């Protein structure tokens, strides 16, 4: 028994199709909740346009946003599972196929020559985060494609350990929000990485964006208290959907903490726009596939 390259490819293709077209159900619930909370016509109107758009994308089976992003994959491999073939090749082929079949916009270029590969792959894309799951016999794949309106507002600062890092974190997020306003297409999810290194800090912030369900709290009570405080503070700025004014700028603040250096530590902030394009599946060693974020679609 093993997980075959061809199976990985067909599952990842399905995931990118789901991600580009269908919003995860918990995001839809969060949007509905945001709509219900608003009392101004302007804010309600923005939510209405977003929810109508989601329905049109579903009915017509087209990308919900034109910026279908840049593909990132989080792959967690159970150490009791066995993979046959080259999973990276499977990811790459699935994305190439999804680019023409879904279709997804051809976004990936070489940053210096600006040549567009036309396939959303190449020069290290898809970017894959590998992790291991001891004692498990499956492969978890979270396929993400993230637009850059929210990505380019990602920010990192360094805080001395002589400072109150909690206060610094609150200020970092507020400053990034105040600078971004409507640009990352709010309502957004805000990922925060407290500590770690330059790369790992942003990595944990980004992965936190895909926490299931949206708005749930970090199990560490100190971190959870900061999440709660930041969420209230950010929504209190009356920026609302698209920054035109309203109560819901963020659908959830998800913070993660990582051990860091005794001198100074990074605090990283990143947004995920309302158009959450991600989908997750579990491939068992016996070939069974479970679709986790979009169970209602069933896959194959």
């Amino acid at each position, binding site marked *: 028994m093993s997980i075959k390259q061809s199976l990985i490819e067909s599952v990842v293709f399905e995931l990118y199709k789901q991600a580009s077209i269908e919003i995860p159900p918990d995001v839809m619930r969060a949007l509905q909740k945001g709509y219900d909370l608003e009392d101004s016509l302007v804010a309600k109107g923005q939510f209405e346009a977003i929810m109508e758009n989601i329905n049109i994308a579903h009915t017509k089976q087209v990308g919900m946003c034109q910026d279908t992003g840049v593909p990132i994959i989080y792959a967690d491999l159970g150490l009791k599972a066995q993979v046959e073939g080259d999973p990276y090749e499977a990811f790459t082929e699935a994305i190439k196929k999804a680019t023409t079949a879904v279709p997804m916009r051809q976004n990936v270029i070489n940053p210096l020559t600006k040549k567009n590969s036309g396939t959303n792959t190449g020069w290290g894309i898809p970017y894959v985060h590998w992790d291991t799951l001891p004692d498990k016999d499956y492969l978890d794949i979270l396929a993400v494609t993230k637009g850059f309106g929210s990505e380019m507002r990602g920010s990192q600062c360094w805080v001395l350990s002589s400072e109150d890092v909690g*206060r610094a974190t609150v200020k970092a997020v507020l400053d990034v929000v105040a600078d971004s306003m409507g640009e990352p297409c709010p309502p957004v999810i805000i990922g925060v990485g407290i500590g770690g290194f330059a790369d790992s800090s942003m990595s944990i912030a980004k992965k936190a964006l895909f926490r299931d369900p949206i708005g749930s709290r970090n199990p560490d009570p100190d971190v959870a208290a900061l999440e709660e405080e930041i969420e209230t503070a950010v929504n209190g700025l009356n920026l609302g959907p698209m920054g035109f004014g309203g109560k819901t700028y963020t659908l959830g603040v998800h913070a993660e903490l990582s051990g860091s250096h005794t001198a100074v530590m990074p605090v990283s902030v990143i947004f995920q726009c309302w158009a959450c394009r991600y989908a997750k599946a579990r491939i068992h060693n016996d070939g069974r596939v479970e679709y986790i974020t979009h169970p209602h679609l069933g896959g194959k």
Partner: protein
Amino acid sequence: MSKSYHFTFPLNEEQIRELQLGDLVYLTGNIYTMRDMGHRRAVDMLNEGKELPFDLASGAIWHCGPIVRKDANDKWETVSAGSTTSSRFTYLGSDLIKKVKLRATIGKGQMLQTAVDTMQEVGSVFLNTTGGTAALYAQQIEEIVDVHWTDLGLPEAIWVMRVKDLGPLVVGIDSHGRSLFNDKKIEMDQLLAQTYKDAKIDPTYNLAYLPKRVPASGTKK
């Protein structure tokens, strides 16, 4: 109270000057998508005294890179089309507005002060869409009429689209020096000051050690 306007291209200065911040606009006619590389090429060409291969001034610029595909007759069709972040085009966009007397720019988020000043001077407006609702706007696009500069990659190409009642678009910058996001910023800054106070954060105290630019002191000895 905001008003609603249905305009068919070409737009004239009188129509544009009538629009006030927050008014709703629906547009009919040909619009031109333009992103970073398209702006760069257009401005470079005009600076070199060359003519653009399309008549921008007859329509509007849309900060958009659509998803497109060929239909059964090998003709391009729009799958999804929505706005990209407009602040990126503040400077090159302002150049274009001046050079071709462009009357309308469609996008999301904001264009910064230089654009506000340029629009006031020329008689031009910035129209806000809802960001990301690209399946919705695709329904308002009747046809892809033409495409230019596909060598820049499909997202960066200039797609000439015939739209019908594209909207509602919100006047985000009018031709009287006013900007929705600037007004919003003024309001937000007050709330922010109170929020810092409540959170026991001194807004003038820079909690972040980096990034910061420390200028050299004195002269080289």
